[in-house]
């Protein structure tokens, strides 16, 4: 099978008000197969949202893709013209945002907002598009499509608003869906429900999906593969089951250990301190040379400060960037 998306050596940097620019993504490589869910795991400053924005060339004006290529369905998006991109954005690749209450227009009924997406991309007549709007909404709200369609965003719950955003995203039948923290503002029950919606869409429409999150627990039982981003570098990439149950990169390991595990929580574990990664991942703290995780790494060695680790293949398409494994 041919990958639907192939990202090669992607470098993205931002200019800040002073002349200095900083690298948000430094050499990101990955591919995505059709019908596959790739979970992108990263904390603040890891570059995960920059990744979503650069895949659609929607970076803010101070952002710049310096090198690399993004092949989507065989075509390099970075070499595409503005009008070609317009045909792709929202139609072939669509984006679901984090905050549904901000992404929806507050004074337009939900159905109309889905209709507008269709009208922007499809040339069919109005009544055909209305019909299609109804179909799309019915697929996400089997029981109450009409009521939702006539509601304003403030009349809907967080989960319903997120479903409306998903309806917009799938209305034109895209082949790739990028979801940037789509469940971060929802409670766990609704979160689980929305993850279920994404799974169904993948199974029924054969969508490929990039699911960006800071919460590794959400990816368990959901993603097919997991890509761990740290400071703009791919720390680890592999099958979700392998990465989540036996992580290899010191960052991934430390991150998972810092989460309270409910099953281990027998009396003596409670209220004991969690093992933490010292410091934080804000960009100001990243070293300019060597491995980006070196200052916080529990397993740092001499080499780590001198040069960047290379990608090591651990087998079964599980790769890690760390000197511990040869790098």
């Amino acid at each position, binding site marked *: 099978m041919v990958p639907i998306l192939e990202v090669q050596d992607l470098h993205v940097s931002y200019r800040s008000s002073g002349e200095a620019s900083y690298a948000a993504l430094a050499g990101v490589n990955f591919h995505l197969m059709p019908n596959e869910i790739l979970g992108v795991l990263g904390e603040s400053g890891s570059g995960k949202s920059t990744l979503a924005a650069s895949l659609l060339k929607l970076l803010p004006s101070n952002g710049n893709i310096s090198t690399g290529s993004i092949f989507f369905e065989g075509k390099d998006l970075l070499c595409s013209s503005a009008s070609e991109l317009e045909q792709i954005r929202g139609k072939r690749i669509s984006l679901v945002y984090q905050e549904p209450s901000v992404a929806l227009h507050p004074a337009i009924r939900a159905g109309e907002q889905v209709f507008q997406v269709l009208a922007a991309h499809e040339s069919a007549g109005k009544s055909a598009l209305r019909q299609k709007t109804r179909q799309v909404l019915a697929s996400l709200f089997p029981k109450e499509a009409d009521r939702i369609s006539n509601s304003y965003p403030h009349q809907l719950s967080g989960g319903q608003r997120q479903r409306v955003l998903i309806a917009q995203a799938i209305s034109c039948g895209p082949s790739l869906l990028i979801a940037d923290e789509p469940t971060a503002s929802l409670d766990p*029950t609704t*979160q*689980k429900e929305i993850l279920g919606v994404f799974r169904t869409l993948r199974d029924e429409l054969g969508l490929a999906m990039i699911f960006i999150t800071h919460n590794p627990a959400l990816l368990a*039982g959901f993603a097919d593969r997991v890509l761990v981003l740290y400071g703009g570098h791919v720390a680890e990439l592999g099958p979700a089951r392998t990465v989540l149950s036996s992580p290899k990169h010191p960052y991934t390991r430390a991150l998972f250990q810092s989460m*309270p*595990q409910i*099953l281990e*929580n027998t009396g003596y574990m409670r*209220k004991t301190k969690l093992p933490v990664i010292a410091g*934080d991942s804000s960009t100001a703290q990243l070293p300019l040379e060597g491995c980006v995780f070196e200052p916080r790494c529990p397993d740092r060695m001499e080499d780590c400060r001198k040069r960047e680790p290379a990608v090591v293949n651990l087998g079964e398409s599980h790769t890690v960037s760390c000197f511990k494994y040869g790098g």
Partner: protein
Amino acid sequence: MQPFLRVEKLVKCYERQNVFGSREKLLALDGVSFAVAQETTLAVVGESGSGKSTLGFCISCLEIPTSGSIWFGGRDIVVLAESERRKLRPQIQLIFQDPSNSLNPRWSVEEILLEPLNLQGKLKREETKQRAVALMTQVGLSSDMFQRSPTQLSGGQRQRLAIARALALEPRLLILDEALSALDCSVQAQIANLLIELQRAVGMTYLFITHDLAMAAHLADEIAVMNRGRVVEQGPAQNILRHPKEEITRHLLAAMPSLDNAERPPLES
């Protein structure tokens, strides 16, 4: 012995006028009762809209309950005269979910910390400055951040600052309303550790409002499960997790995302 905090049959009813002028009633709290012992943590868990936040607002005197009582320090703060309540209020502090919204971006870190001290006017100018330095150390921030704006801090540093500000008036009860939810996982662990340290050091009592059951289980002595404005189940954290009695508790447990699922087959749709 009097419990440290006791809430009895607390009711909060919001009324609002819809566009046609008729009044709608929303019962946010429908007879909530529970007690918290000193130096312990009670986690309040529940879905969105179950009344968790309203409960926090009522106890911190930001909302006036419709009926019921809140016993704190041997007095019912619901019926207390405003002048008396004012004296009690510094002892109960609230920390919000998103520190980027609860800290004034135009103020420096120092101004944010000095405000509660100056408003109280109990300390002299030099003393307030010393107190601010001590507060920064207590929450693990360095005092050379004093002149920065909160926008120049990371999410974790901002939440530490929010905690330092809450500690300024030496409260006895901290209400944490989803105080960890907006933070990265590794930062959540750091702040959780800070909360544990504070409890050991100064004997703080926490009301930890959250929808994260794993963190609730880690930090709390007891868990109260809320549903539709009522506490449906309360008990020692381990009991609630291992032997949930109520349907809603089982439902919350089942929805909890966990890395332990990594070994299980993918989620059914």
